[in-house]
């Protein structure tokens, strides 16, 4: 027997249900979920939050988050979140969307919600492919990247260029807080958590529309081990999708400075 006091240093966040994940080994959806749950718990917002799930790998996000949730049609989560937030303005409302959902099917809804300055928070998971349907080309797929629907690599001449979504959203006057973070290592994960906290604080204080793009791995569809996938993200995704703050309104700057 050890003579020291046993101290719990790591546990399942209280915003999580006690179930086994369906996400693939090494997928960063779990990390993103956990950060959101931790932040909402730290803010005491678990009982005051309504999440909106997308169509894609995270269609079952509500199986893991232990608070009220709705499930949107493909791409329409920002519209659905608008309907909820406008009816229940005191609730914390967020959408959680992948790149196929948000940047392809739902580009109209996300741009319009941002332009309106909806008081919601959007998490955009960018893993450069359609995960759930088996790794097809997404709007975020890198030039030359092989996917199951760009078997020779994305040819920009015929298949176009990837969309830098955070940059695009940041160009809208209605958006208040638009940043990109990455989930490929501990330092970046910590930074992502800080941004998530800021985004929810923005919503809580009525400071406008907040959007966080999270660079994520998809080892299964990329055909890489979890470790290699993280290296691939760092080597290929970050040059295309720089980690940066693209829009921080002056009110939010003051909020962050004020602590």
């Amino acid at each position: 027997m050890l003579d020291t006091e046993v101290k719990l240093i790591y546990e399942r966040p209280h915003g999580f249900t006690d179930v086994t994940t369906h996400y693939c080994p090494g997928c960063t959806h779990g990390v993103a979920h956990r950060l959101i749950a931790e932040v909402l718990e730290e803010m005491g917002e678990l009982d005051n939050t309504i999440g909106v799930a997308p169509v894609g790998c995270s269609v079952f996000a509500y199986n893991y988050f232990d608070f009220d949730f709705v499930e949107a049609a493909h791409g329409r989560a920002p519209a659905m979140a608008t309907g909820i937030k406008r009816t229940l303005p005191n609730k914390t409302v967020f959408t959680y969307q992948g790149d196929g959902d948000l940047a392809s099917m739902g580009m109209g809804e996300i741009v319009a919600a941002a332009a309106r300055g909806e008081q919601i928070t959007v998490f955009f998971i960018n893993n450069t492919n359609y995960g759930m349907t088996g790794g097809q080309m997404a709007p975020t797929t890198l030039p030359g990247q092989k996917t199951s629907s760009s078997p020779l690599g994305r040819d920009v001449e015929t298949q176009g260029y990837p969309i830098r979504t955070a940059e695009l959203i940041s160009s809208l006057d209605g958006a208040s807080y638009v940043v990109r973070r990455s989930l490929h290592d501990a330092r970046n994960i910590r930074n992502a958590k800080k941004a998530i906290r800021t985004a929810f604080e923005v919503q809580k204080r009525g400071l406008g529309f907040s959007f966080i793009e999270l660079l994520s791995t998809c080892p299964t569809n990329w055909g890489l081990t979890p470790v290699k996938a993280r290296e691939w993200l760092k080597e290929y995704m970050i040059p295309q999708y720089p980690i940066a703050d693209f829009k921080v309104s002056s009110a939010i700057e003051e909020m962050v400075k004020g602590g």
Partner: protein
Amino acid sequence: MALELIKGNVAVAETALRVGLVSYFGYPITPQTELLEHLSARMPELGRAFVQAESELGAINMVYGAACTGFRTMTSSSSPGVSLMQEGLSYISGTELPAVIVNVVRGGPGLGNIAPSQADYTQMVHGGGHGEYHLIVLAPSSVQEAVDLTALAFDLAEKYRMVVCILMDGYLGQMMEPVELPPFAPLRSEAPDWAVGAKHPEGERVVLTSININPPMQEIFNVKMMSRWQQIEKDEVRYKGYYLDDAEYVVVGFGTAGRIALSSVRAARAKGIKVGLLRPITVSPFPVEALDNLVSGKKGFLVVEMNNGQMLDDVSAIVAKRVPIHFYGRMGGMVPYPDEIDAAIDEMIHSDHDVNRDARGVWLAKMRELVGTGA
């Protein structure tokens, strides 16, 4: 209460607001736009939610979200816009949520035109989105009835947790008539316990979704939905009969077409012709039993519509060749004049009473002569 002279679209909007509309989401499209415009001023004035959405897709999905909160919500549009909303209507139905949609139907297909039409009957009554679901579809024939049915629509939507459609047409939307609006009802203060954001029993949470990834679970859900629909077919049928007691002939028409047909029925009665009118108010659920009970002893039925005979198919299935059926319709945003229906009644009573007659074929041949084929 004093009568007020109001345009149909505005009357529906003001009624919705008075019976407790908490949120409205819409997109401009003729001939529905006054509904959106009226609420764009009135909702913010009362501190309620109004969003002019980026598209009908956006609007219906905002309604989807708002419906998840359990508070009264609606949208309105016209045919092309309602086509875009079909995805959302399927999802809302599959999630068992109350919502109201107004379709001020215009001539089609495609972009068509902005004239009054009933060409969306099949889309609204027999489903327009994917999967299996039903809407309750209410078809007013006057502005006052549109007011009354708007109030009813919200009650039915909440009672059955489903989508209720008010099926209008450009005439009803644009026409001004004296109406009595309902008094202001208090807003619901608490959401129902199935709603997100509502007070749930300790430790429980609410997830609202239309997904049933396990087919046996989806089938169970569909059985439940069908059972509810069966109950609605029993309890919620509404229609109005005119001069039916001693009628030998029956005209069937809904909405504006039903109203025009009533003029013709009255004119025929003045000439001593024993003809009555059955005007379905709920075109879904359809007044099957009422129509079925009328068949025995009748000499003929005439279906009048502002489309190519979409309700005609439903009537034909019920009458089942026991009595000859006739059809008169105008399409593409054209509205029949009473004298056209007078002539159709006249033709019916002078026809050879063949129960196997091809009502649509005879009508279409006549239409080719009347308007041509553009060939």
